[in-house]
Structure formats: structure tokens, C-alpha cells
């Protein structure tokens, strides 16, 4: 074997590994938006009433976004400490655990949640809400694993490819990540036509396990170079046992979905075996723990900013809890007029602000902060982050309002609504992804301001046209409105990323890129919580006034018509809000320090 073939073999190996790690990146991003189209299916399946459960059901989306954000911020640094292969493997195990908790949420996890609530609160908790909380918990665990995959994959690129050859692989990882969340809603809407929603999460398990096994072997040379070490024998025993059992369960569930009937009853009994579920949960948790234990690193490297991670997590959770909560109580007391926020909202928001202040204080004094706050001193970095936060907010308005409109106004067949929602959300996200390319080209020619401002104006126009939706609107018209909004949002991606990357030192570009992504995710979580709260509040007040006008003898058909009218109006208002937010973001875009012509476009989404 000649030495000339060694670099070629190494290069080929690097691309093979990259292809492998991109698959879970895609799946993790897919799961970010997969519930957008199918959340109504989940809510109906769990029997969650809209009056008392809609705000909590929103955490199925918010919980994933929050945990994903925190994981993106943290796990890249974790991989510096304990090794890429080990961190990636842990992330995959966590994703498997989360996927199992989500897929089986209505069985053993719901029973555990019920026992926990009985212990804490007593009484007899509603099994529907116990299943919902188990589902949310599973989504959070999923996201902790999924969020790690993007930064670790990008860090792996640095290990696998020489400096001059990293741009394309990095772009590929970013593109795969984008493709995942762009197609998630469409995938979800299509899949529920043929299988129940849990099957979509069961499928994650064998695919992720296969990738975990293969990448562990393929990354062995990289791990050896960095003295990562392997797992102990007991560790491997626990990992293998846990993965075998969970995959057997997953494959059985997927198989029984293809052959329902008698298998369905057996499947339900199998999933309800609490001793099996408990053993499996403990095995997977132990597997994660064993995977995390490795040889002590002999090199002095950056420490993990645990305090910073904890404070920013608490701040984000507090912000979403404070903005997204509604009044509790019986259906008759829920969402009473008067207070816009529940009693606990103000203290929680104050606490969130305190945690944010604490985060800033910690980061300024940390030797290895999560984010270098010095970056925000640059005008373009601050503005770009603020714009991307607003872009995320607007994106979420679309992702939340479209399924609501379809399920309430367009059709009352849940499965059909999921497919229509998936297609229409694809009309929003796919143009957004495609428009990043001309956005990059425009940035090259005109700098940052023009494409950003233009994109926001176009997006605002798209949302503005969407605020005129009626029950008679055609799906084509809806798709065109959403497509326009998506194109506009997509045009902003490249100039915003480029503005940030060009404003910081080369050693900070990775962290800066992550920061831009994180700000969009934060905007999406705020959009989810705030718009859910707004929608519920406005719906209640509008409904009460319209129903009062009808009088006490209103027929059910008249009341149903009121519901349609109210949802239509509330969706229109949400779209108008998104249009106004885009307009506000245009002002920020105009304030961007102009970029030099000829600068390279950013890494894309």
C-alpha cells in the first residue's frame, strides 16, 4: 500500500463518518418541527380539553425548543472535555431514551407521572394530563440529545478535515440540520396518514441505535488520537442490554402498527408492563452514565460553565412559564377575563430576569463562558441576534397558527388536517430554506442591510396577506401567502449569519454562529408561549361577547359557527402581529453596519 493512498483513505473515511453523523442530526432537527402538524392529533388522542390544556400542550413544542437550545449551547463544550465520540454516543443514547418516553408516554410513563402527582398533591390526577406531562418530559429528554448533535458534529468536522477543507462539510451539516426542521412538519403530517403518531418516535430508536453502533466503531481512530478511552465491560453490558430491549420493543411496536388487530391489544399490555418500563429506563440511564465515565483528561482544557448553563436554562424556562401560563381552575374558571397572566406569572418573570442577570454576572467572570458577552459590544452582533430572535418569533407564529386554523376552520377530520397542515407548513419552511441561497448572493453584492431589510419586508407582506384568511380561502392562496413569508424570512439568514461571523475574531466564529442559531430558537420558544397565551385569551373574550349576543337559546350549530369565526379572527390577528414584528425588525436591519461588498456569504441556516 503506497503512502499516497493513506490521505485518500482518510478523506474517504472522513466523509463516511460525516454521512453517518448527519443522519441523527437530520432526525433530531426533524423532531423539532414534527409535532407542529400532528399536535392536534396528539391532543385528541390524549383527550386534552382546549379550555384547560391548550397552554400546557404547547410545552410539547416549547419544551423541545428550550432543551434543544440549552443542549446546543452546552454540548459542544462537553465534547471538548470528554471527547467527541463519547459525547456523540451519549447524545444518541439520550435521544433514544427520550424517543422511548415519548412513544410510550400514554403507558408506563403516564402511570409514573400519576404516582408522582399523587405523592405531591394527593387526589386523583387526570390521566390525560399525566400522559401529556410524560410526553413533555420525553420531548425534553429527546431534545437534550438532539441539540448536542449539531455542535458535536461540527466539532467533529474540525477533527476529521484539515482547515482548508472544512467549509463544505460544515455547510453540509448545517444544510442537513436545516432540511430536518424544514421537512419535519410535512413528514409528520404524511406519516399520521398511515400510522399512529407514536410510531414516528418508535422509528427513531432503531435508526439512532444503528448509527450509534457504527459511529462508535468508525470514530475509534479519532477517539484514540484524543485518548478518549472506551467503556468498561459492565458499562458495555448495561448499554447493550438497554439498547437490545428498547429496540426489541420499538421493532415490535413498528411491526404491530403494520399488522394491527390482535397485536394491538398485546402491544398495549406490553407497554403497560411497569417492571419492564422501569428496568428499561434505569438501564438506559445507567448506559448514559457509564458512557460519560472515561479516563481523566490529562490536558488542561476549558472547564464546563455549569453555573452559566443552569442560570440561562432557568431564565429561559421562567420566561416561557411566565409568558405562557393561563389561569387554572375548572373549565368555568379557566381564562376568566381580567388578568392577562396568572398570579404566578409576575414572580416567575422577575425570577427569570434575576437569573438572566446572574447569567450575565457569571459569564463576565468565567474563564470559559458559554458565550463571550464581549461579542455583544459589536453593533452588528447585537442587532443580528435581535433580528434573528424576531425571525424565530415570526416563524413560530406560522408554525402554531396554521395547524390551528386547519383543524378548526378548514376540516374536522384530524388525519386530513395533519396532512394539510404539513403541506402548508412546508410551503412556509421550504421556500425559507431555498431563499437562503439568493440571500447569500445578495449579501455578496449589497452587504447586510439590503437583503435583511428586503427579506423582512417580504416576510411582513406575506404575513400581512395571511391576516386576511377566511373560512372560504383556498389552500393555494394560503400556500402563496406562507411561501411569501418563508421567502422573506429565508433571505435574512445569510446576511445575519455573515454579519455576525465577520464581526468577531476567527477563534470566536463557531461560538458566534451557535449564538445566532440559539437566538432564533429562543425567539421560537417565546413565540410559542406568547402566541398560545394570546390566542387563548383573545378566543375566550371574543367568544364570550359573540355568545352573549346570540342569547341563551343559541343552537349548537350557531355556537359552532361562533367558534369558527373566533378562531379565524384570532389567527388573523396573530398574522398581523407577525407582520408588525417584521416591520419592527426592518428598523433594526437598517441600523446594521453595512458589510463590505465581496465578503463571503455565511454558513446558511
Amino acid at each position, binding site marked *: 500500500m503506497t503512502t499516497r493512498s493513506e490521505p485518500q483513505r482518510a478523506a474517504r473515511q472522513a466523509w463516511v463518518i460525516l454521512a453517518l453523523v448527519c443522519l441523527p442530526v437530520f432526525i433530531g432537527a426533524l423532531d423539532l418541527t414534527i409535532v407542529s402538524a400532528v399536535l*392536534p*392529533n396528539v*391532543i*385528541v388522542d390524549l*383527550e*386534552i*380539553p*382546549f*379550555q*384547560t390544556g391548550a397552554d400546557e400542550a404547547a410545552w410539547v413544542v416549547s419544551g423541545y425548543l428550550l432543551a434543544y437550545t440549552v443542549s446546543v449551547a452546552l454540548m459542544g463544550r462537553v465534547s471538548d472535555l470528554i471527547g467527541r465520540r463519547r459525547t456523540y454516543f451519549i447524545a444518541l443514547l439520550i435521544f433514544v431514551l427520550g424517543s422511548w418516553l415519548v412513544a410510550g408516554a400514554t403507558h408506563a410513563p403516564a402511570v409514573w407521572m400519576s404516582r408522582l402527582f399523587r405523592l405531591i398533591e394527593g387526589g*386523583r390526577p*387526570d390521566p*390525560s394530563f399525566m400522559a401529556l406531562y410524560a410526553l413533555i418530559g420525553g420531548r425534553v429528554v429527546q431534545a437534550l440529545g438532539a441539540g448536542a448533535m449539531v455542535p458535536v458534529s461540527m466539532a467533529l468536522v474540525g477533527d476529521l478535515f484539515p482547515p482548508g477543507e472544512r467549509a463544505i462539510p460544515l455547510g453540509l451539516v448545517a444544510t442537513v440540520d436545516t432540511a430536518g426542521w424544514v421537512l419535519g412538519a410535512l413528514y409528520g403530517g404524511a406519516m399520521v396518514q398511515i400510522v399512529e403518531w407514536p410510531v414516528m418516535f418508535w422509528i427513531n430508536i432503531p435508526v439512532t441505535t444503528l448509527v450509534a453502533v457504527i459511529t462508535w466503531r468508525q470514530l475509534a481512530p479519532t477517539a484514540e488520537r484524543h485518548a478518549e478511552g472506551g467503556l468498561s465491560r459492565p458499562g458495555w453490558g448495561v448499554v447493550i442490554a438497554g439498547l437490545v430491549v428498547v429496540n426489541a420493543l420499538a421493532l415490535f411496536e413498528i411491526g404491530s402498527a403494520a399488522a394491527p388487530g390482535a397485536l394491538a391489544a398485546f402491544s398495549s399490555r406490553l407497554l403497560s408492563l411497569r417492571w419492564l418500563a422501569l428496568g428499561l429506563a434505569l438501564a438506559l440511564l445507567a448506559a448514559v452514565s457509564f458512557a460519560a465515565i472515561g479516563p481523566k483528561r490529562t490536558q488542561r482544557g476549558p472547564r464546563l460553565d455549569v453555573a452559566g448553563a443552569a442560570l440561562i436554562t432557568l431564565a429561559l424556562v421562567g420566561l416561557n412559564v411566565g409568558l405562557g401560563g393561563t389561569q387554572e381552575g*375548572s*373549565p*368555568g374558571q*379557566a*381564562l376568566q377575563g381580567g388578568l392577562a397572566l396568572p398570579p404566578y406569572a409576575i414572580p416567575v418573570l422577575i425570577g427569570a430576569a434575576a437569573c438572566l442577570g446572574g447569567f450575565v454576572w457569571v459569564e463576565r467572570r468565567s474563564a470559559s463562558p458559554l458565550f463571550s458577552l464581549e461579542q455583544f459590544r459589536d453593533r452588528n452582533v447585537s442587532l443580528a441576534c435581535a433580528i434573528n430572535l424576531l425571525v424565530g418569533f415570526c416563524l413560530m407564529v406560522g408554525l402554531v397558527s396554521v395547524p390551528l386554523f386547519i*383543524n*378548526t376552520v378548514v*376540516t*374536522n*377530520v*384530524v388525519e386530513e*388536517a395533519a396532512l394539510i397542515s404539513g403541506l402548508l407548513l412546508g410551503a412556509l419552511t421550504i421556500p425559507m430554506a431555498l431563499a437562503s441561497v439568493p440571500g447569500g448572493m445578495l449579501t455578496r453584492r449589497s452587504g447586510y442591510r439590503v437583503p435583511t431589510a428586503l427579506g423582512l419586508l417580504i416576510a411582513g407582506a406575506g404575513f400581512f396577506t395571511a391576516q386576511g384568511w377566511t373560512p372560504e380561502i383556498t389552500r393555494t392562496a394560503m400556500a402563496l401567502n406562507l411561501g411569501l413569508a418563508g421567502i422573506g424570512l429565508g433571505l435574512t439568514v445569510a446576511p445575519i449569519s455573515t454579519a455576525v461571523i465577520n464581526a468577531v475574531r476567527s477563534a470566536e466564529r463557531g461560538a458566534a454562529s451557535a449564538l445566532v442559531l440559539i437566538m432564533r430558537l429562543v425567539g421560537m420558544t417565546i413565540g410559542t408561549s406568547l402566541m398560545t397565551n394570546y390566542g387563548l385569551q383573545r*378566543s*375566550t373574550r371574543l*367568544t*364570550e361577547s359573540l*355568545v352573549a349576543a346570540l342569547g*341563551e337559546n*343559541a343552537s*349548537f*350549530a350557531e*355556537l*359552532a359557527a*361562533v*367558534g369558527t369565526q373566533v378562531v379565524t379572527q384570532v389567527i388573523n390577528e396573530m398574522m398581523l402581529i407577525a407582520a408588525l414584528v417584521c416591520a419592527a425588525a426592518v428598523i433594526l436591519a437598517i441600523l446594521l453596519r453595512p458589510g463590505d461588498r465581496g465578503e463571503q456569504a455565511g454558513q446558511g441556516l
Partner: protein
Amino acid sequence: MRRVMLAVGVISALILLAACGGGGVTPEQLLADSAQAMKDVQTVQWAIEHEGEPIVLDPTQGLTALSATGSYQAPSSVYAMVKVQAGSIVAQAEVLWTADGAFFKLPPLRPNFGPIELPGTFNPADIFNEEVGIPHVLTEVLTSPTLAGEEDLEGTATYHLTAQAAGEDLSGLVGGAVAEGTATVDLWINKDSKELVRVIVTEADGSTWTVDFFSYGEPVEIPTP
């Protein structure tokens, strides 16, 4: 000597029979005791779950009932929170039965209690109806009762009985219309108080009704219409 042996044998057989017979408890006696205990109930909370064919409330609007939880206060006040589904929307309605009739509200569409005529497909108040309710079903409707054993049900020691019944006669046991045909009934009766803890009715078409009773004798809040 033979007489002594015979006497010992008879006495031993009687003792053995008494032991095997669960301390002398027969299924019929258990049902009668339970019926009386349920007649004497002053307050109780309950939960109804149904799996299988949808419980249609209003076919023109596609309205179906999913499940219900509620409370009962003697002599005739029943309150329920009923989950209903219309298309892809799940809502929670409050229904109230009093001596003056049935009332419901569905916030925010119907924020105050108003009179309603409920369909026969779902009417939890039947469970506590003197004529068709639990005591009647336990003593007059169930046939072939069998003691399946003794079980601990979520910390409560119970007798598990099984029985058969004509489905159309069981609305007073589960609060809804049970399909025609022979249904299988499983009952769990509190060993001490003889009050019902759980009822599972398996209809002829395989659908199931599960009714849980709990918090006997505890104060309940029943709104006024």
C-alpha cells in the same frame, strides 16, 4: 368408633367448605351487600372511561363523549365534567343533574348553566338513579355471579366478582348505553365497606366501560345552576 370418625369427618368437611367459601361469602350475598352499601352512600366521586365504539351524543354535529369524572351527593345531585370531541377539538363540558332536571355549560361557548336534554347514549346520572342505578343492577340484572378472588386494587382490599348481563340493561351501572347482547361484568367490591371500587363492563362488540368509585363520604362541591 365409626360414629366418632364419621362425626369428625363431617365436621372437618364443614370447616373445609367454610374456608374454601371465603369465610362464607357468596357472590349473591356480596352483590346484595354491595347494593345496600351503595344505597346508603351519601357522597362519592367517580370516573368513567370508555374504549371502543364512540359514544355519539349528537350525530349531526359529530359530537362524541370521551370520558367523564364527577361526584354524587345524596339524594339526587350529580355533577360531571365530561370530555367531548367534535372533529379535531376536545372540550370539557360541565353537566349537572338535580331534582329540577339536567343542566350543562361549555365555556366559553356556553359560559353559564342552561337546561339540556341529554341523549340516552351517555348519562352518568343513571348510575345513581333509584330505579335503574347500581342497586337495581346488582340485585336484578346481573346473572351468574362468580367470585373470581380477592385482590388489592390500588391499596384497597377487594372481592373480584364476575357476572353476565344483557347489555341494554346496564346503563345504570356505567352511565351510558351498552350495546345489545351479552356483556361481561367485572366488579371489585371493598371487602370492608362492600362499596364498589371498580366496574368494568365488556360489551358484546369488545368495547369496554371502566367506572371507578373513590373518596366515599368525603365532602363534594356541586355547583348550583
